[in-house]
């Protein structure tokens, strides 16, 4: 079998975790295929990442060029298309991240490659890649295979695979960028930092979190009453901040903050994987949700499967009596 290529993702001097998550999983799959595991690293002056990746790869292909000082989807697409034509790996793995989703679909179209997004699992057996992705926000799984010949391309969901200890000793191979000139039609301008609010929820000891199940803003009152009773800070899902129930700096999840309080009370949150990724490190998790199959219960320590509007007032009332 041919090789498995994994695209290393980095931003502003940090190798992002998805890179090692993908490489750790890819190492298992490469054992099944018998191919080599190759990291692809594109950037400018990031030798230390190349070095770190040798512990997870049989080879690191490293393009070190000032053209790639900042991420640019169009430039990535051009370079990766050339690499795919030249090296013809069996499988190319990219993170299903804000970076990955900005070029992988276009690359798949350009290369006319079999392409499947947002995998939560994959393996190689009986001469085929077995691919698993989800539908309906985690409520249904689907098994896929590829048709046609490799190379194949997949994107991998963040925080799905454990990062293994480094166990390889790959070599770094520096290659010239197949792209020689800058492009005109897309230009990186700058980064703007996330807004900072009055409370830093990453430091909170107790968090009361709300999701879509709260339904409307006026119901935030009963949540606030609970939070005040137990001196908790408020936070929420993307849906809750998009709806304006909470400021954006209170959003927990991949596009918001990662929190790890002692106690996290999730109210009306179904538990999309983006949210779980931001809160599952909390020490104790209490979840209140009507749907017994809600993914939030996979990370909860206490599950209350019921109507939050009936549970919450009594919870607050009793807590007032006990700690108020």
């Amino acid at each position, binding site marked *: 079998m041919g090789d498995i290529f994994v695209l290393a993702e980095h931003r502003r001097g940090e190798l992002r975790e998805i890179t090692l998550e993908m490489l750790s999983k890819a190492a298992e799959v490469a054992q099944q295929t018998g191919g080599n595991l190759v990291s692809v690293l594109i950037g400018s002056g990031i030798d230390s990442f190349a070095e770190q990746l040798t512990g997870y790869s049989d080879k690191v292909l490293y393009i070190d060029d000032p053209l790639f000082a900042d*991420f640019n989807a169009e430039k990535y697409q051009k370079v990766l298309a050339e690499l795919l034509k030249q090296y013809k790996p069996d499988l190319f793995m990219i993170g299903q991240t*804000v*970076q990955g*989703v*900005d070029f992988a*679909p*276009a690359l*798949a179209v350009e290369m006319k490659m*079999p*392409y*499947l*997004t*947002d995998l939560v699992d994959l393996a190689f057996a009986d001469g085929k890649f077995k691919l698993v992705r*989800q539908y*309906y*926000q985690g*409520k*249904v*799984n*689907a*098994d896929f*295979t*590829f*048709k046609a010949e490799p190379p194949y391309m997949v994107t991998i969901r963040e925080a799905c695979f454990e990062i293994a200890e480094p166990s390889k000793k790959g070599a770094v191979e520096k290659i010239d960028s197949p792209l020689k000139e800058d492009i*005109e039609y897309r*230009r*990186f*301008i700058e*980064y*703007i930092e*996330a*807004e900072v609010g009055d409370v830093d929820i990453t430091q909170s000891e107790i968090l009361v979190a709300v999701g879509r199940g709260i339904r409307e803003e006026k119901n935030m009152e009963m949540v606030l009453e609970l939070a005040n009773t137990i001196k908790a800070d408020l936070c929420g899902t*993307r*849906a809750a*901040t998009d709806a304006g129930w909470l400021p954006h700096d209170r*959003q927990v999840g991949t*596009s918001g903050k990662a929190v790890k309080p002692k*106690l996290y009370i999730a109210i009306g949150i179904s538990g999309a994987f983006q949210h779980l990724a931001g809160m599952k490190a909390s020490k*104790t998790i*209490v*979840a209140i949700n009507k*749907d017994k199959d809600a993914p939030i*219960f*996979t990370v*909860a*320590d*206490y*599950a*209350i*499967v*019921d109507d939050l509007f*009936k*549970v*919450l007032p*009594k*919870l607050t009332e*009793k*807590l007032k009596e*006990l*700690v108020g």
Partner: protein
Amino acid sequence: MKTFVCIKRVPDTSEAEVKVDATGKDVDSSRFSFDINEADNYAVEEAILIKEAMGGTVQVVCIGPKDADVMIRMALAKGGDSAMRIEDPRINLIDPLKVAKVLAATLKDQECNLVLTGCMANDDGSMAVGVALAEELGVSHAAMVKKVEILDESKIKVHRELEGGLLEVVELALPAVLTIQTGINEPRYAPIRGIRQAQKKELKVLSLDDIGLAEDEVNEASSLIELDKFYIPEVVSTAEVIEGEPEEKGVIMAEKLVKGGLL
């Protein structure tokens, strides 16, 4: 600005039980309630805001069944000018690259300046159609857009929302496809007058033949991915389930929190 906005009809499964149907390759959607995909709703609003600020038109594009007309008319009621709905049972809808191909064939002769769509569909979560569409059309793109600034007739500046709330500011040449992130604006409700007017606006229904696509470019046989089966994942929960009447559960939980030293 001639703007197109691509929208999808999706079921609300946030609190619904999902079951696999008899084919094993789809879900039983008979009890779902459907509406416009959340991120697409923000894309519609952004398109209308651009029209209000700069003039021009907003045209709505949707691949979907007749039932999608209600949702399409709602987008027209908010300020869309006309709509196209592509309906053809031969399209392999499970493959986002085929969906992108159909949209590209629909838009290729439209001389669009801007195409907006949601960054993610809540049913399949592929996050692939918009960027694939840009490639099919041969125009520039940006994914996960949280702010759009039109600089002039040939250039725009967008803010892409990265992980952790960091923003990346990028300049793009027009025409462009943007995938819109939720929270970029506050989607309006359709005004009553708009709802009446929307009934008179043009809504064309098109087949593959109408958009000049051969069946073997977008059907299941042409797809390079193969769905084997749908199944319900096992929900492994180690949580202690609080039992009792709803009101009792709150009391029991409060006692556990306090006696367990969690508060």
